[in-house]
């Protein structure tokens, strides 16, 4: 635990030094200003009055839909991209000659270094999400009077989506030692690759005509093989709206994917000379 705590403090110090926390706080302040503007805006007041007039249930549904919209595909995509850019430099900077030597000379096994960085990165993003989404929720709740607690579950779900992509970031960072290449690979993986696969499978599930033949098999194979952030985003949306989740397959597959990626990272890191 002592070593994990040290890694977490180290990652947070690096994040503060690299102005990462400043970026998160700037974004947070910008959002806060927008929301405060919305609170004091007459148009918003009128919209709320209209919804209130249509009955308590409809009013509540409208607030929940608004909150779900805040973490739907596009905002989720932007937030996750921001976090990918933020954390992708941690492993390459650790692997710099002269720094990795000292780390490996300490009484810590190589798998512990991988897991320590993984957990520390996830906690950094989790606390940033608590800050960003927590304040948004607080302000919306204060303004509308609707305290919709399931919105807060989105913090955990978005952290999970991030963890899924972070496991690939860690693997490619070990492989390439370059944060730029890691960012490019992960952004390509996150969007457009997994998004297109997600859209293709959703289309087929809704009765669309598949490509057929080898292409169909290949696309489906890739869909099941690669991470499913967009399916997880759908699950998050359902949980925030308190509606039934169609399938948790993406969750199980994502846990499997994270495990495989971390295992690959550990095996590669274990064999490598520095």
């Amino acid at each position: 635990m002592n070593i994990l705590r040290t890694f977490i403090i180290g990652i947070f110090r690096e994040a503060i030094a690299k102005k990462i926390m400043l970026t998160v706080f700037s974004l947070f302040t910008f959002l806060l200003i927008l929301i405060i503007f919305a609170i004091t805006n007459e148009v918003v007041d009128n919209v709320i009055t209209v919804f209130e007039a249509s009955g308590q249930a409809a009013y509540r549904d409208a607030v929940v839909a608004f909150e779900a919209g805040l973490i739907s595909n596009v905002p989720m995509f932007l937030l996750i991209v921001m976090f990918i850019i933020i954390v992708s430099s941690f492993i390459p900077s650790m692997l710099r000659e002269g720094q990795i030597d000292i780390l490996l000379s300490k009484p810590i096994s190589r798998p512990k270094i991988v897991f320590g960085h993984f957990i520390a990165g996830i906690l950094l993003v989790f606390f940033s999400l608590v800050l960003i989404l927590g304040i948004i929720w607080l302000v919306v709740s204060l303004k509308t009077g609707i305290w919709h607690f399931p919105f807060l579950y989105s913090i955990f779900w978005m952290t999970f989506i991030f963890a899924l992509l972070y496991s690939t970031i860690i693997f490619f960072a070990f492989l390439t030692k370059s944060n730029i290449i890691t960012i490019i690979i992960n952004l390509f993986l996150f969007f457009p690759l997994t998004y297109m696969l997600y859209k293709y499978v959703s289309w087929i599930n809704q009765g669309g005509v598949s490509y057929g033949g080898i292409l169909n098999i290949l696309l489906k194979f890739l869909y099941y093989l690669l991470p499913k952030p967009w399916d997880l985003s759908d699950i998050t949306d359902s949980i925030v709206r308190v509606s039934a989740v169609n399938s948790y397959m993406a969750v199980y597959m994502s846990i499997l994917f994270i495990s495989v990626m971390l295992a690959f990272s550990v095996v590669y890191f274990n064999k490598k000379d520095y």
Partner: protein
Amino acid sequence: MNFVEVSELTKYYPGKTFSKDRILALDKVSFTVGEGEIFGLLGPNGAGKTTLVKILLGIVHPTTGTAGLLGKNLSDVKVKSSVGYLPENHKYPQYLSAGQLLEFYGKLSGMNNTEVKKRSDELLKLVDMEKWKTTKIRKYSKGMMQRVGLAQALINDPKLIFLDEPTDGVDPIGRKHIRDVLIELRNQGKTIFLNSHMLSEIEMICDRVVILNKGSLIKEGNVKDIITTSDLFIFNTSEISDTTMNILLSKYKCMISDRKSFTCKTESLDELNMLIDFLRSEKILIENISKERNTLEKMFINLIEHQN
């Protein structure tokens, strides 16, 4: 118990991409380092010194052979809690201060808060960096970085310390300071494994050395034995006549520097005394006789040139 044990250690690095050729960095190297020794690892650039140190610390994996530290196998990472390391080109996170750096590495070595704080203060005082404890590392000079690096290597109060070029980039006063710290550590009974190009320093500090060249061990021994193996004697005398000079050249195979100084090789103490008797019989006043000192640098250069 041997603190460092290296047996038949061989390391090949992969060659160029798509090439089957491998680069030999270490070739069946074997030696031991005992407790409390200051041990020097010497060799020209590319001799395999850093590879050897990195293998001992688990940073590089050996191709074949075995090695152990403090009587334990290298696969046991816990042994490293009694080991300190200062790499040659260390790069510490620039955003940390000396205090934060020591705290970070101390905790990774398994120390608790109280131990780290106490030890950090002691070490920063030892390396004369206590005034800079809260200053960010990016503002440090090369010499200051080396001193903080030394403190980092000592943070866990290690029994065995690996130092790779500890005086690199340090001015003469800083070098003297680091040397004093090393001697102080030896007095405390620490075992030090020193990898340095500064042969004069190795000669001053080390008890024993190993010389590597092109991955192979070419010489191993006590520093005192290596630098005093010469059987040449330097004589400083009153002025020598031409006749005496000729006798010294022909009978005693001496090398004459000038009329007042010459060097002679003697096979035994008796032969040396015979030479002295001869000089005295010639009424030559002997001012000084000294054994020629074979410096480590001279011996090192001879060995490497001979090998190459």
